[in-house]
């Protein structure tokens, strides 16, 4: 992923470009040297009023400086933490192109992590720049944040405070601002950790003024005028430049200068008026009209001013202004973007307000908005439309651009646009409400969606929109409804809405179509129409040739889930691999995480622990790239693998990190699942005490949702109840299992039906209902066989091994049983102690007479009938009689089986 993924690249460039120094610049050695000396400190603060020459000083300093430096010009639009940090990282990347990958991923995750987390991650990544990129020992790279006073957002201030409390050694931060920011400056200053240049230092000295005037004004200036300029401006550079400009434009300015008002501010206003009046009329108008723009380019200015004369257009004028030092700075090296000096611009705007009517100004904004919208600068287009008071335009811009952005998964940008729009307006426009619903969907906040759909329906009913808009709106609503019904397991409604959506969602809405296909196919699965489901998936993927963007990701996720639900592990592996290839081809990091997660699920159930560990740890390792769902489930997978491998500490560590993640991101579902897992893990690791409190957390009445994930916490609850083994807990387990069974059958969920049946078998066995247990187990094994599911059984431990063994002895038992048993670690394979024998078995042992017991012992020692007769001093025939009785009582057919049963019963004596 590149830095400029979500923001048009030419706008980024203008903010990262170090402003070029003006021709009239006087190199101020004393200040530059001071900045040099501050370079080994964490922070330099340049704090002084507007027009003191801060930007020029810093630009001059870095231009001559041999060290690596980056620049970021801030403005009012950077008022959100994620936007600010995106630019921050982008600035760092102008020096270190691949830096701060983790922070970047964090910024584009579904939910922004907390400020301390972000600060810590970024601080580490900046710190490592020193090591990775061979900064000369002890040297810091420089990052200038210009116009820092524009930042008023508390989260951003908190972020930098955290960063400055533990400043990375490789960074020298320079803040250029009009007033001191609320950062821990006092303590840095006290510890000598702060470089500082303030207004007093920035004043031009007499020598510097003389040098400046000499450079700017080609003819010699009357010393008296010089003295007056110095006195009036007090070394304030903007004042000086205005004075110089005024003298250049009209050399007969003696009188004018002498009339300069005593105060800086009024002098400025006065001189500006004078300067403006001396400029050609067309240029004046140009300046006033374009003052509404944060950033200027030739074509944009032409759009705003309506200039159309060949040879004298916006581009020409801007270049002329720069050349004549009329407070215009270029923002890139191609001469495409410019901006006015802040003070100059604010004065132009006040002139504009005086000379133009409100309507005329609104019209200027409207023209700017139109141009920006047509040229892809969506945010600027919105801002100008709002300034023009044209709410319809705002809505139209977002409506026109939203699907493009959705198809490219630019969710944080979409969220940002919505926040620029007043709430009242959003509530009135179906398309904007839909956008909000889509953002919720992206965040998996499904429960919040229905109320949006109801509001939209109400709006449409109130003022029915014309076609084709109406059908398009309906198609999006249908898609969201089918999603809602899927999660309530209403197969009929899911299919109904998804089918209708597929018929009407336009092909350009790739993102929406992907979802419609996903729920259409999933609806068929809910009904149990598996072949229909597969056909649907195939159809959906064929459609990708039209889209060629992120369209297939949702379809592939749903297809993987389908394989999982139908316990088709080879299908799952195959599709996951295909998904992984697509993800890397199209550079989709989140999808790659999904693919590996699914592959891990298959590997685990196939008992390929190494493979599962590999995939799950890849998902967990990139925790903020993956969707929160993928991360948490991947972590459960990894912990399960570790536990299976006996790596208890690591299993616990993984779960702790999920609990932390759940709290940090305020995700109650993840938190609940993780705590249940933790309780189960504790019982597996022999710790009784930790397992107990979970009982209170179990929500017994919560409706069941489709079981599509690696880990379904309901089963952990059943296992915990079984582990408790009290009559009450077993009863409850029984109740829960029968609910789960009904649900799994109703939703045709083979995968988890296997779990239900296996647990049912254990429960029946524990309560002495052996035949029922064997029957349930048989069903489970039969379902597990085609896909090769192993771990469901292995994870249930020696009790399951024992039950499987008994199943295996029965006539007509599936072959697969043997395969499962072989997969058990040797230590878990059936060696039942007498205490664990079922009641019936115990009875069997008791019916053997002493003599029969003796014969059995000798049979086990491989003695022939003759040898046994000799040993026991009885006849051959008697031996044969005893043997037949033994076989009859044990329910076996031959010596081998008899010995085996005897061994199982633990009645064979050693030796």
């Amino acid at each position, binding site marked *: 992923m590149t830095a400029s993924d979500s923001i048009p690249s030419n706008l980024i460039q203008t903010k990262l470009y170090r402003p070029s120094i003006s021709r009239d610049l006087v190199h101020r050695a004393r200040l530059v040297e001071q900045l040099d000396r501050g370079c080994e400190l964490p922070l330099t603060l340049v*704090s*002084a*009023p507007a027009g003191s020459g801060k930007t020029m000083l810093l630009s001059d300093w870095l231009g001559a400086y041999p060290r690596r430096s980056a620049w970021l010009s801030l403005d009012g639009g950077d008022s959100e933490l994620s936007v600010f940090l995106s630019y921050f990282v982008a600035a760092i990347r102008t020096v270190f192109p691949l830096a701060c990958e983790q922070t970047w991923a964090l910024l584009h995750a579904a939910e922004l992590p907390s400020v301390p987390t972000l600060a810590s991650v970024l601080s580490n990544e900046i710190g490592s720049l020193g090591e990775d990129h061979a900064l000369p020992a002890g040297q810091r790279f420089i990052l200038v944040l210009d116009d820092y*006073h524009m930042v*008023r957002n*508390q989260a951003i*201030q908190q972020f930098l*405070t955290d960063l400055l409390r533990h400043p990375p050694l490789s960074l020298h931060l320079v803040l250029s*601002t*009009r*007033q*001191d*920011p*609320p*950062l*821990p*400056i*006092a*303590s840095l*200053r*006290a510890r000598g950790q702060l470089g500082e240049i*303030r*207004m*007093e230092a920035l*004043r031009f000295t*007499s020598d510097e003024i003389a040098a400046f005037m000499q450079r700017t004004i080609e003819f010699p200036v009357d010393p008296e005028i010089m003295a007056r300029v*110095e*006195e009036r401006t*007090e*070394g304030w550079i903007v004042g000086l430049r205005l004075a110089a400009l005024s003298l250049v434009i009209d050399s007969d300015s003696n009188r004018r200068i002498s009339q300069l008002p005593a105060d800086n501010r009024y002098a400025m206003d006065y001189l500006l008026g004078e300067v403006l009046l001396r400029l050609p009329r067309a240029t004046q108008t140009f300046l006033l009209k374009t003052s509404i723009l944060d950033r200027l380019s030739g074509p944009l200015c032409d759009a705003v001013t309506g200039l159309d004369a060949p040879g004298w257009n916006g581009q020409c004028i801007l270049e002329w202004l720069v050349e004549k030092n009329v407070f215009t700075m270029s923002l890139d090296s191609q001469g495409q973007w410019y901006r006015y000096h802040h003070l100059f611009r604010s004065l132009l705007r006040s002139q504009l307000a005086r000379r133009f009517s409100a309507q005329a100004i609104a019209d200027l904004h409207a023209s700017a908005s139109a141009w920006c919208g047509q040229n892809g600068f969506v945010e600027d287009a919105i801002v100008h439309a709002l300034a023009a008071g044209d709410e319809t335009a705002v809505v139209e811009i977002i409506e026109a651009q939203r699907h493009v952005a959705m198809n490219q998964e630019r969710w944080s940008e979409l969220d940002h646009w919505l926040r620029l729009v007043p709430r009242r307006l959003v509530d009135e426009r179906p398309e904007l409400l839909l956008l909000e619903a889509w953002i919720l969907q992206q965040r998996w906040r499904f429960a919040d969606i229905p109320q949006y759909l109801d509001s939209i329906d109400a709006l449409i009913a109130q003022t029915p929109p014309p076609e084709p808009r109406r059908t398009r709106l309906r198609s999006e609503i249908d898609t969201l409804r089918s999603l809602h019904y899927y999660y309530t397991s209403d197969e009929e409604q899911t299919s109904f809405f998804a089918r209708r959506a597929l018929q009407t969602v336009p092909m350009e809405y790739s993102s929406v179509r992907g979802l419609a296909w996903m729920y259409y196919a999933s609806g068929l699965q809910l009904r149990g129409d598996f072949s229909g489901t597969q056909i649907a998936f195939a159809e959906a993927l064929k459609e990708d040739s039209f889209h060629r963007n992120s369209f297939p990701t949702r379809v592939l996720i749903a297809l993987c889930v389908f394989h999982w639900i139908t316990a088709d592990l080879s299908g799952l592996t195959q599709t996951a691999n295909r998904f992984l290839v697509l993800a890397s081809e199209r550079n989709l990091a989140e999808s790659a995480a999904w693919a590996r997660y699914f592959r891990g699920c298959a590997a685990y159930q196939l008992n390929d622990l190494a493979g599962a560990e590999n995939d799950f740890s890849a998902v967990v390792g990139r925790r903020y790239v993956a969707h929160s769902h993928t991360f948490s489930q991947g972590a459960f997978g990894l912990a399960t693998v570790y536990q299976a491998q006996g790596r208890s500490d690591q299993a616990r560590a993984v779960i702790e990190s999920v609990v932390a993640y759940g709290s940090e991101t305020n995700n109650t579902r993840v938190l609940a699942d993780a705590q249940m897992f933790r309780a189960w893990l504790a019982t597996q690791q022999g710790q009784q005490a930790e397992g107990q409190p979970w009982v209170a957390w179990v929500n017994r009445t919560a409706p069941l949702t489709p079981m599509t994930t690696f880990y379904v916490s309901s089963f952990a609850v059943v296992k915990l109840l079984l582990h408790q083994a009290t009559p009450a807990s077993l009863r409850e387990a029984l109740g829960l299992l029968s609910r789960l069974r009904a649900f799994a059958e109703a939703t045709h969920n083979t995968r988890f039906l296997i779990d239900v049946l296996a647990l049912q078998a254990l429960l029946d066995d524990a309560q002495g209902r052996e035949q029922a247990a064997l029957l349930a187990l048989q069903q489970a094994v039969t379902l597990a066989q085609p896909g090769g599911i192993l771990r469901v059984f292995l994870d249930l431990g020696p009790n399951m091994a024992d039950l499987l063994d008994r199943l295996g002895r029965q006539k007509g038992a599936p072959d697969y049983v043997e395969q499962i048993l072989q997969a058990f670690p040797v230590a878990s394979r059936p060696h039942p102690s007498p205490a664990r024998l079922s009641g019936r078995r115990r009875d069997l042992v008791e019916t053997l007479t002493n003599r029969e017991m003796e014969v059995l012992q000798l049979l086990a020692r491989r003695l022939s009938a003759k040898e046994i007769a000799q040993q026991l001093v009885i006849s051959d025939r008697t031996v044969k009689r005893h043997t037949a009785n033994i076989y009859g009582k044990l329910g076996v057919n031959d010596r081998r089986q008899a010995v085996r049963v005897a061994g199982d019963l633990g009645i064979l004596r050693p030796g």
Partner: protein
Amino acid sequence: MRHNKGLALDTSASYEICVQGNLDASWSDRLGGVSIQSNNCADTAPVTMLSGSLIDQAALMGVLNALYDLGMPLLSVQYLEKP
């Protein structure tokens, strides 16, 4: 070059600022190093007083803006003549 026109933008001065509300003393570091004292009387709304020497007007404006951004209404700003 300086004329005796009283306080200038770039000279240091002492101020006493009062705002409505409570502010933790730990904010001192981020607010120009001023000392912070909160006053919580039973009947009236709480008041916080910030006082100290600020290096110049840019520092003062930084404090005032920060207080505004923290949502604390300004009750008074008093320039204190240096003793």
